[in-house]
């Protein structure tokens, strides 16, 4: 049994504590926006925020998240439903192609902009190199991060609303 705050809501999950957070989120908390891509912390598709930090949920056991705060892609928008500046930039720049990697990309980008409201290219490289996009949307991801940073720095810097 693990108790978590997920997207601002208290949740309990009664499963094997060794189960990776990813599968607890997808199959037990029924939040399928967080994706499975590799299972070995190589692709970033499963990125969520745990206590504010981006983590690869496929490689974090549920026990390590017990008592923690988790934010998934479903919790990035404001409670009023307003998109996060990063999400809006993703639409404005038309970033996603197949879209499968994009939950993880957005979670990494939100964390980056919270820590570095005006990231350099090197900052973007470092924060985003853990997220593979097989559709190759890297140029647009970079442009969208910069767009989000310049538009509403205060909002982007605020990070996720629940994390």
């Amino acid at each position, binding site marked *: 049994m693990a108790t978590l705050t997920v997207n601002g809501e208290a949740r309990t999950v009664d499963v094997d504590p060794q189960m990776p957070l990813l599968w607890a989120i997808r199959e037990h908390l029924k939040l399928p926006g967080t*994706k499975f891509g590799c299972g070995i912390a190589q692709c970033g598709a499963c990125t969520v925020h745990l206590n504010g930090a981006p983590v690869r949920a496929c490689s974090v056991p549920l026990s390590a998240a017990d008592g923690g705060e988790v934010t998934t892609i479903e919790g990035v928008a404001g409670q009023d439903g307003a998109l996060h500046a990063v*999400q809006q930039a993703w639409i404005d720049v038309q970033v996603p*192609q197949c*879209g*499968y990697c994009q939950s993880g990309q957005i979670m990494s980008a939100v964390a980056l902009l919270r820590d570095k409201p005006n990231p350099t290219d090197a900052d973007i490289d470092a924060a985003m190199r853990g997220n593979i996009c097989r559709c190759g*949307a890297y*140029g647009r991801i970079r442009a969208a991060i910069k767009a989000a940073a310049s538009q509403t720095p205060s909002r982007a810097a605020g990070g996720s609303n629940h994390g």
Partner: protein
Amino acid sequence: MGKWTRRGLIAAGVLTGGAFAVGVGIREGHRAPRLAGMVAGEGETLVNVWVKLAQDNTITAIVPHSEMGQGVFTAMAQMLAEEMDADWEHVTFEQAPAHEAYANYPLGKGYLLGDIRVPGLVADSLNGGMLRVAQNMSLQITGGSTAVRFTGQTGMRVAGAAAREMLVRAAAREWGAPAAEIRTEKSHLFHDASGRTAPYATFAAAAGAMSPPVQPRLKSREQYALMGQSAKRLDIPAKVDGSAVFAIDVDLPDMAYAAVAGPPVFGARVTRLDDAAAKAMPGVREVINEGDFVAVVADGYWRAEQAIAALDIAWTQTGRETLGQDAIYAQFRTDMARAVETGQEQRDVRSGDARGAAAAASQRVEAEYSVPYLAHAAMEPINAVAHVKDGKVDLWIGHQNPLGARDAIAKALGYDRHAITVHTCFLGGGFGRKSEADYPIMAVRIAQRFNHPVKMIWSREQDIRQDFYRPATTARVIAGLSEDNMPVSWDYQFVHKNDPVEATHIPYAIENQFIHFAETENPIRFGPWRSVDHTQHGFFIESFIDELAHAAQQDPVAFRRTLLVDKPRHIAVLDAVAEMSGWGRPMPDQRGLGVALVESFGTIVAEIVEVDASGAVPRVVNVWAAADAGFVVNPDGFTAQIESAVIYGLTAALYGNISVENGAVVQSNFHDYPMLRMDDAPAIAVRIINSDANFGGGGEPGTPPAAPALANAIFAAKGQRIRALPLAGGGRLA
């Protein structure tokens, strides 16, 4: 539009609920592309598209293609809306069900059309040719960059134009005005003389009672208002908040989860299975030995995968247990040499006397190239959800060919195809892998042992090791140069002729050509991989042309230009990309520019790569691409496709290597099958040239030039000729 009237049919009617529907059935002519092995044979293809006009004036394009990131729903909707003069703000899309409504008249009738009459000629071919139609349509669904070229041009636009004409006629009758005086704009009808106006929906019922026009008039290029505009992709909002539903996200009551283990050596079968440890795990429901694979069904996917890891499986010997990658290449070489020695070359193109001309040439240039197997590695691993109950199958899947998958299941497992319903989801990447029927069949084989739904997910390791790979291939090229440094002969030999047939042909005017291949066994299963045979032949041909240019001491762009006789479109993209890149400018040490030019799927793409070759692994700094696809419906979407295709091609050139040792695929996940990432992704600039030639494809044509442009850039940077890929990892770049 040429021939569609003789090959197409338009039907219209009113649906339950009062929506007006227009459908177009298309029979494509002989120019439709054909991928051997996926298509039953020569034949015509039928694709039906539909438009619905609802009572609230919303227009829905029903698209018989799968959305795997290429923006197909949006481009199709744009083409429909253009001809219909629709209000883009109120245009939406639906994935066409994998259903005979989209290939076969009788069910289509029941599904959508009520009792509309269809000309007998067409009805016959729809009924009689059903199987072949389904197989052919399968191909057409999403592959070969066909959506805009065929479905859009001959389906969506015609349906939209027909719908508009019928609405105009209905309004004309009601208003007592000549149809010619009625204009349409933003899903409304206007009769300016009388000041009347009405939304389309007002006349839905009246239009539905009319007979459809035989030949609706399509707009000319100057009249386009939506086509050619970068409309925002309709599928993107759902892809930024986690709400887009991929098959892996489908959640059904009482669903169980399956993990699988396939044979390490293709074709092997289970001889012994020790599942005691797996079965002892909590949550494991069943271990299934299917002979050609083993599955564990459990309460959750993680547990199922753990149980798979705890299995002890012994497999039969196939005779390939000692096969290695070097032996595969050696076999290619042996078979190619034998074909030449024995005169058993399989002819592809022959004009003049290539060997005689080479013997008489003042300079002879010769090279051997090879490329390895490649996995697709779509971001969403292979998966499917199946529910079998009372002899009926429901399948949720991301597939490039849903109808073909359905028919393959019916055939393999003995179901009536009408007992199978395929629910198509978004694809988290496809690239050709998701046109295969293996995984839908596996999912149903597992699920038919239960009365609850089962979600089968492949681990990334299974996804990489149980792929249908881009085939490893070798080519040998011999060319002769005349005294004035012009190529006089082209002798090009390769292994494995697949599709498209023209992938091995060259656009260059070389008088004596012999293009031929050797029969050889490919021991590893293969399938279409983004741009199919163009990936390997684009690399071979465009690298060797570069070698020839240097042997002739000519500039690679100028050399190609000279050889592009009567090819103004090729020359235009080449000139454009040269201009974009500042071709010819002085470069710092270890930096170089390389060019490549490939036409595929009706689109001509030239790319120039700027490389920094100073490190152990070359770094691609910039890529410029110019593309002529005739006319581009959605420029930003097309640009994104070229960007994507460039990254896909560069990833393969730099890192892509699936190798076989002891008969099995060595690589397993992204640590040993690496991908290009953010920090090594180049800046990419794309220029679109609308030449008004026939519409070309968008998803694939950007891939083939990427690898040769990179290899040619490395030669420019450091004088090292790359004749085998990948550049990194294989230790091939000294």
